[in-house]
């Protein structure tokens, strides 16, 4: 009998998650699993309802969940587990601790994600590298959405690394949002207007794409070291051609594949626990010009 798996997506229109879905489907097909996608359109209440509906329908042997608001889902995830449904967490932490990939609810079969805090430390490590040999290394930090716990955790990881390096100073901040380069364009333009000098910009790939566009417009390509987070096609291309300095790899495809493989294992009785997809990636996913040839983009940006 074919197994039924529900996939609760934060948003079906999201390009990162679309890359994960493709891999999940490949694995599922190979294992005779049928996936049904639920689209919460970034509405947490909708996602809760979908989770409840999926449990109530009694159709599903497993649920892969990409949470919008991870903690809020816990009660229903517990009841799914109680109902004997295997749960695999994808991409976003389900639980209060944003520093770990490990499952935070008893009975979750696997949790496949790069913990936000860890992304922050990786970002920090690349920044340290970019600032090597510079006594006064001025950094601009572009948030996704400043103030939300996710971005706070990333920043925390970043700060914990750079605080050990007195030569590095964050001189300005901006907000790029997570939708395309638009936010990064405006943020970078405004920061340039302040007239502050800076050497390094860090932020999510979407924002760094915007930054790259503005820097190109201003004839400043290469004068500022861009460090992305996401491993999108433009990031890898940019690092290769020198217009970006470095980036933290992001692996939506790998994540999707690992999640579905974990689900297959779970349905066969083996829990895999916490998986950081980047741990199986060359150099822990820290990309620079030296190792960029080892990476291929798993999504377009």
């Amino acid at each position: 009998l074919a197994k039924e798996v529900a996939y609760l997506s934060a948003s079906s229109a999201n390009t990162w998650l679309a890359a994960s879905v493709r891999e999940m489907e490949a694995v599922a097909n190979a294992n005779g699993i049928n996936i049904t996608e639920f689209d919460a359109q970034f509405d947490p209440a909708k996602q809760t309802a979908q989770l409840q509906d999926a449990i109530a329908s009694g159709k599903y042997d497993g649920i892969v969940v990409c949470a919008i608001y991870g903690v809020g889902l816990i009660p229903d995830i517990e009841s799914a587990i109680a109902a004997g449904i295997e749960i695999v967490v994808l991409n976003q932490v389900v639980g209060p601790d944003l520093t770990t990939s490990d499952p935070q609810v008893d009975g979750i079969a696997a949790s496949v994600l790069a913990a936000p805090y860890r992304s922050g430390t990786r970002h920090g490590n690349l920044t340290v590298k970019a600032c090597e040999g510079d006594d006064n290394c001025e950094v601009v930090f572009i948030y996704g959405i400043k103030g939300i716990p996710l971005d706070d955790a990333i920043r925390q990881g970043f700060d914990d690394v750079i605080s050990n390096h007195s030569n590095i100073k964050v001189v300005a901040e901006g907000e790029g949002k997570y939708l395309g380069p638009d936010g990064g364009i405006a943020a970078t333009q405004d920061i340039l207007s302040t007239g502050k000098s800076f050497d390094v910009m860090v932020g999510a790939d979407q924002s760094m794409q915007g930054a790259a566009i503005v820097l190109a417009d201003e004839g400043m390509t290469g004068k500022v070291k861009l460090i992305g987070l996401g491993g999108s096609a433009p990031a890898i291309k940019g690092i290769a051609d020198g217009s970006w300095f470095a980036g933290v790899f992001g692996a939506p495809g790998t994540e999707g594949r690992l999640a579905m493989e974990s689900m297959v294992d779970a349905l066969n009785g083996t829990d895999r626990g916490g998986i950081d997809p980047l741990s199986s990636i060359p150099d822990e996913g820290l990309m620079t010009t030296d190792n960029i040839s080892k990476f291929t983009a798993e999504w377009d940006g």
Partner: protein
Amino acid sequence: MNIIELSRKYGIAVITISLFLILALTTEGFFTERNIRNLLDQQSTILIAASFMTIVIISGNFDISISAIFVVAPLFALNIENATGNVLLSVFGGVGLGIILGAFNAIVVTYFKVNSFIATLATSFMFFGFGYLISDRSLMRPVTDTYQQIARTKFFDITSATWIALITVIIASILLTRTRFGRNVFATGGNQEAARLAGINVPMVQATTFILLGASAALAGIVNSSRSISAQPSDDFSFVFSVLTAVIVGGTSIMGGKGAIWRTVAAAFFLAFMNNGFNLLQVDPLWQRIILGLVIVIAVALDSWSQRKNV
């Protein structure tokens, strides 16, 4: 009244009931006790706020800020709960904050005469800001086990969230249809100048509607946080979107003066049935959007057509 007149008068309710019957007959898992219980539980927060939103809209105003109140009130309640361990106090505190924020909206709209749409959009930013401030930008969880009982206790197998929603809907309906306040709401929304000349204290009526809505949005937020045993700050406007959609699909006029809470309730369930049906029938999310849009247009067109013929 014959059946045609009835179905004209109750257009949106008839549409909702038809959808219910169709789903019950065709969709496995729909008409099960558990699914219906879930549906009721899922709609509770929307219904709590939507009842009083209906009143605000009938009185001729808008309130965008309920999303922000929905976010900030449980954070405040959890602050109290974490500090005192007293759940009752925390609920009062959270609802009290809703009242204060509602009163703030009321002052901006009635005293400074700022259009309510933009006024409550602006106050939304402020209230969201407060949310970040009082939560210190992090997730909050209750320290007591009682907090989660607010929404999750079961009476006769139905969650307390559902009961709270039921009681709120009934109170709002009675207020709107059976009290002088309710009549004044209709008068104010129908013709503000006429209401004023008839001796109705229009600013007071409007202020009251905002305060009640503030309180109910706060209550909805607390119920939601009790259900998910946590709360976190955000700038998420999705709650007011869902609430407004229910009110307006229900046929309450955004021009004011016209509408009913039963309409809002019917529309909320209409939308819930649609989404539930999509989930149970495993409809491709891509087509869900297109079908949902189309069905809403058809339902609203039918309802407004039946209301027109009904004069």
